């Protein structure tokens, strides 16, 4: 891990805090889901925290972001309130979408979160439209679209890159290549190793980052966003990472080699890597790091209590926001 730019200690600790928050949110939500307390499906982003936090740290609150079914991490990284997120997972009226969206549809207008999405690649054209809107309104906002390697096989991905290229839109397409499209390994769903090569077909720039290395992701995103704000057109970023769990919580992931997850967990844990970097460089000591984990554990359990104690939506809520 290497940091070529000046980053204040406070910023480092903030990034590590967010990564911990994501990890703990996912771990605790998973536990509650397996106990039957959280309905629906859950898709855990454990292992991909460096990509979420590294990218979102490089954009502002006014910038737009859209994500996927595996979107909890991105929402947290963009500033999402874990109380309202957890309440949404529980289907409670205090959730971001008043219990009408659930895990796969969390959105937050004030934070520029255009929404998680239940359809693979469904959010990519929408983000592209937000970038067009920013450009037409003459703001310097950018739009970030998260998706996976599987989504890069969808027409929506290709149509979006093409139209963003011809319109020179300020959109950062972030492919989190976790090497699996649901159960299908990358080698079986696309005949390429780097999704980034697909940028060439649309004559746009691309950048590949180590998606387990937050410093790499953060610095590369800063550079990319600077380009976007200059009006140089869209960029395809590929963050190579690994989904520690199965496709959904409860998926035993029998389609993976047995030692593969262990290898990533042992040697490529984004949080462990970053914590090690902070300690090696004497930016923080183990006590400070432990305090962060402790504080975030409490924060997530508080969110669980908030969700548990929140009301179910009144049945009239089902008929609200229906205009046609």
């Amino acid at each position, binding site marked *: 891990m290497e940091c070529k730019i000046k980053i204040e200690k406070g910023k480092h600790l903030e990034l590590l805090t967010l990564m911990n928050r994501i990890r703990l949110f996912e771990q605790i939500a998973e536990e509650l889901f397996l106990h039957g307390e959280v309905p629906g499906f859950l898709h855990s982003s454990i292992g991909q925290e460096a990509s979420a936090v590294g990218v979102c740290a490089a954009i502002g609150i006014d910038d737009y972001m859209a994500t996927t079914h595996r979107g909890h991490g991105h929402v947290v990284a963009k500033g999402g309130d874990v109380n309202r997120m957890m309440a949404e997972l529980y289907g409670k009226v205090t959730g*971001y979408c008043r219990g009408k969206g659930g895990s796969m549809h969390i959105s937050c207008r004030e934070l520029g979160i255009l*929404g998680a999405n239940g359809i693979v690649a*469904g959010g990519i*054209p*929408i983000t*592209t439209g937000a970038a067009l*809107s920013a450009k*037409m309104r003459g703001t310097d906002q950018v739009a970030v679209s998260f998706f996976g390697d599987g989504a890069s096989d969808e027409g929506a991905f290709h149509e979006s890159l093409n139209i963003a290229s011809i319109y020179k839109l300020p959109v950062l397409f972030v492919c989190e290549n976790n090497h699996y499209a649901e159960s299908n390994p990358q080698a079986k769903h696309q005949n390429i190793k780097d999704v980034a090569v697909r940028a060439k077909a649309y004559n746009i720039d691309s950048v590949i980052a180590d998606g387990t290395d937050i410093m790499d992701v953060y610095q590369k995103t800063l550079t990319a966003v600077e380009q976007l704000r200059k009006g140089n057109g869209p960029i395809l970023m590929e963050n190579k990472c690994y989904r520690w769990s199965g496709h959904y919580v409860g998926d035993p992931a029998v389609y993976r080699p047995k030692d593969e997850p262990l290898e990533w967990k042992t040697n490529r844990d984004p949080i462990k890597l970053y914590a090690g970097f902070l300690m090696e460089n004497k930016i923080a000591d183990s006590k400070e790091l432990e305090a962060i984990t402790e504080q975030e554990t409490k924060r997530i359990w508080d969110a669980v209590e908030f969700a548990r104690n929140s009301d179910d939506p009144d049945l009239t809520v089902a008929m609200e926001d229906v*205009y*046609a």
Partner: protein
Amino acid sequence: MPRSMTYRDALREALREELIRDERIFLLGEDIEDPFGGTYKVTQGLTEEFGHDRVRNTPISEIAITGVALGAAMTGMRPVAELMYVDFAGCAMDQIMNQIAKMRYMSGGQVEAPLVIRTQQGTGRSSAAQHAQSLEAMFAHIPGLKVAMPVTPYDAKGMLKAAIRDPDPVIFLEHKLLYNTTGEVPEEDYVVPLGVADVKRVGTDVTIVATSRMVLHALDAAEILAKDGISVEVVDPRSIVPLDQETIFDSLRKTHRLMVVHEAVERNGWGAELCALVMDHCFDELDAPVKRIASKNTPVPFAPVLENFVVPSVEEIVAGVKDLLV
């Protein structure tokens, strides 16, 4: 002063006036820029006046057209997207049914999606199975989409303005055979609200509820039937979502006989929905079973004789009304 103008010109005038009125409005679609001006020439001349930013050609990418429109609508713009043929909505259906229709609801009311998808449908030009369908029922089935189907130039202009000013997504279905038809259109600004039916002809014996181009067929049939002393009332719902049920029911309460005519295939068509609504609300008013006249349950054939055969004709409507009165 009202002027006579074509359906096409009325639509263009609505777009032009709205582009002037609100700078958040922009048009996007395939081949809509000048000098081509759109496959059916509705947008001709608008690029020259408003520039390529606000009247914007897209690649042949229906997912991008609809998805980009949605993203722009969620973030402060008011896009009017054009799908060249309604059939091409097939390529964009994820964005239309899973994203556009549901965004407001899924977000718990946080966002609106003020966008219009203009497209055209229908038979009459031997466009065959992939360029001539009438798909209004498919859209109307999905909660979250408004569905407009204007037949006259007056309605086309006023309803397009209403659709553009609406805070929610509207599927605006023009008909390819109507573009050259003419009618009176006022010079001053006006809006025809969605969800307000129009009684296109007053009558006392039978109510025909018809949509889009079939309104013209129904009016022709009414003229023929009048010569036999049969008085037909023709009700045009103008939009099927929202639907002005009361105007239809009021007419039925007067005539006690109902026919529904549409160009979409009969099976699971919008007419079936109307039949069910009448059963629920006005069963006792019926002196005869409701009659449906719609296209035969086939893909649209190419040969003119076959196309004519599957689509409802004026003669079929005349015969159907006579059946209702037996």
